[in-house]
């Protein structure tokens, strides 16, 4: 099956808090790392979520090999590398890569400028983080011996912050009007605005996250940034048929028939059990109706969408591969 995003080198994954964007970013990295491809998974929010998901030691500011990609059609899998980007290290690396500051470089640190620039000077922090991501996608000759990745997946800040985060040159405008940082930001924007970048949204089928996704897509369009797909995460099991759902919602399921079915299945039937099953059916049917309404909204957004199941046992490394396979089967990777 071919991918919906063949020309994309940088996959940015965003989403509202609690929707599972880090999980989806990790699964996407595994799915992309099929057929010998090298993929880099980056995080920028200092949470060490990648280390926890892949059950490895906290990541340093260096590219580490963390997992083998999804095996696809018997072809040898590629490798997923991970990188934890923090603004201080990115700034120091940037300075040493582009400037021979020598004594001034050390003075910057001594005078608290690095801390100042990375925590308070707004926009600069984002430029440093996205700058490193840019460098990973667009390797240059200054970074000797670095791996040329086939794809980079960024576990990005949440939906509400994604447009200012990527729209670095606008954020810097007014602060740094000229100079190398400004030029650097402009070069980065060329990549972020190009078809080699796709910004994917993760949502669950609830009102607020879907609304935020729609708003986020609109903001990206306004900023001229490329919208990718929508990944609908934590989709409930769909074990009931449509007509049964309608009946369940109205409390119209045939209690006697269910009771005798349970007896056929060898279950010790109590009134409590039947009540419980009917209650669950009603709750489930109400939720499903809400989900369907939200799904319609997602479909109406005009971008490809993908669905991942809610895993009742929680997320572990094995389930990341399951989700990766689901993304690949649906054409996201």
């Amino acid at each position: 099956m071919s991918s919906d995003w063949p020309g994309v080198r940088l996959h940015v994954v965003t989403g509202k808090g609690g929707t599972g964007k880090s999980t989806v970013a990790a699964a996407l990295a595994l799915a992309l790392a099929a057929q010998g491809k090298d993929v880099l998974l980056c995080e920028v929010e200092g949470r060490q979520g990648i280390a926890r998901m892949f059950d490895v030691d906290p990541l340093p500011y260096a590219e580490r090999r963390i997992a083998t990609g999804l095996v696809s059609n018997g072809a040898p899998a590629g490798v997923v590398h991970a990188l934890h980007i923090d603004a201080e290290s990115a700034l120091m690396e940037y300075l040493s890569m582009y400037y021979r500051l020598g004594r001034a470089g050390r003075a910057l640190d001594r005078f608290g400028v690095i801390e100042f620039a990375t925590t308070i000077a707004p926009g600069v922090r984002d430029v440093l983080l996205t700058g490193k991501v840019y460098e990973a996608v667009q390797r240059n000759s200054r970074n000797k011996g670095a791996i040329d990745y086939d794809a980079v997946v960024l576990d990005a800040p949440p939906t509400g912050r994604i447009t200012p985060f990527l729209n670095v040159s606008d954020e810097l405008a007014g602060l740094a009007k000229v100079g190398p940082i400004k030029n650097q930001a402009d070069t980065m924007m060329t990549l972020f605005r190009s078809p080699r970048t796709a910004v994917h949204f993760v949502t669950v089928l609830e009102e607020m996250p879907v609304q935020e996704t729609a708003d986020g897509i609109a903001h990206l369009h306004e900023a001229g940034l490329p919208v990718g797909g929508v990944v609908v995460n934590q989709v409930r099991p769909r074990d009931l048929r449509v007509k049964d759902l309608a009946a369940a919602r109205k409390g119209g399921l045939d209690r006697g028939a269910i009771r005798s079915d349970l007896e056929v299945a060898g279950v010790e039937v109590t009134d409590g059990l039947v009540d419980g099953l009917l209650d669950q059916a009603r709750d489930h049917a109400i939720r499903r109706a809400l989900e369907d309404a939200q799904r319609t909204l997602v479909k109406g957004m005009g971008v490809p969408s993908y669905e991942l199941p809610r895993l009742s046992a929680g997320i572990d490394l094995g389930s990341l591969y399951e989700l990766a396979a689901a993304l690949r089967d649906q054409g996201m990777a």
Partner: protein
Amino acid sequence: MTRTHPRVGPLVARTAAAPLDVDALLDDPGTGIIVCCGSGGVGKTTTSAALALRAAERGRKVVVLTIDPARRLAQSMGIEALDNTPRPVAGLVGAADHGGSLDAMMLDMKRTFDEVVEAQASPEKARQILENPFYVALSSSFAGTQEYMAMEKLGQLQRDAQAAGTYDLIVVDTPPSRSALDFLDAPERLSSFLDGRFVRLLLAPARGPARIMTAGLGLVTGALSKILGGQFITDLQTFVAALDTVFGGFRARAQQTYALLQAPGTAFLVVAAPEADALREAAYFVERLAEDRMPLAGLVVNRASPPPQGELSADEAMAAATRLRRDGASATAPLTAGLLRLHADRQRMVEREAALRERFAAAHPSVATAVVPALAGDVHDLAGLRVVGELLADQPS
């Protein structure tokens, strides 16, 4: 709706957490401030609004400060207009009989910041600050500004309430911080920025011709100009010099708000969802609050899967569903098999969530906990908030 009894079994029996008595907290006249904190997406806003509504309907004079409510919820509370002022909420039930009332407001971060500057500086100075590109960026996008402004607004509300007797309970929702640190450290971070070595150095030449720029600073500003452009340093210097006049005010207020949070009338509620990440963040919050000697009232776990009725285990239900698919001849067999699989799914969720909560309780046994079952629908009106309030208060003792 019939409420089921908590499951009795090895997992549940060991859970040590005491139930959180929400009504006792709301009814205690000594409770003046309730702060709901927690990671993003766990239902903090809904919890804050539900607590505020319940307190008002039980006779408290309440104001709730929300950060980013869902559109329909904001509409139903009459606060979709972002004007940074508390507005009365209509449609309360029985509040008037008990002398209760509810006002609500949505935080406008930039406006709150502007108001602080305007209150602290002369009109001329204020204008200078408000127009500076650094201020514009700082007041709208600095990570931590929102947290700091929520605390600033809380301080304002509390001073007004004390002066005019308008409110006797303030409920505060907090921004979805990337980490607990953002929220507790925001006042500290802002004042340490203002006290920072670099900022003081930038100010030095502005303070008097007698001060000689050190060679080190010359190097630093030289390097910065080279990378960022000369205008950057000029703007920054103007900004810092202008802000210098309001430094004292900022720092004093940050410290006041911090002290207010530590006072006995404040109660922190840590809000979480029964997910590993959210509970890990919650544990971190609990530890930070203890370290900073902030009064913690308890933990609220939202969106818990309600335990299914009946004694059927997940494995038994799955086995029965398989048998039914194989042997069941009736028209309803697929339906019943589906119901059994739903039951198994629910049962597994309940067991996993109980294990997660138990792990939390083992590490933090003294934290009283309220578990709120997930609702079938979204909450977007007062009736929905009332249901959440009832569920919050209705903890098995």
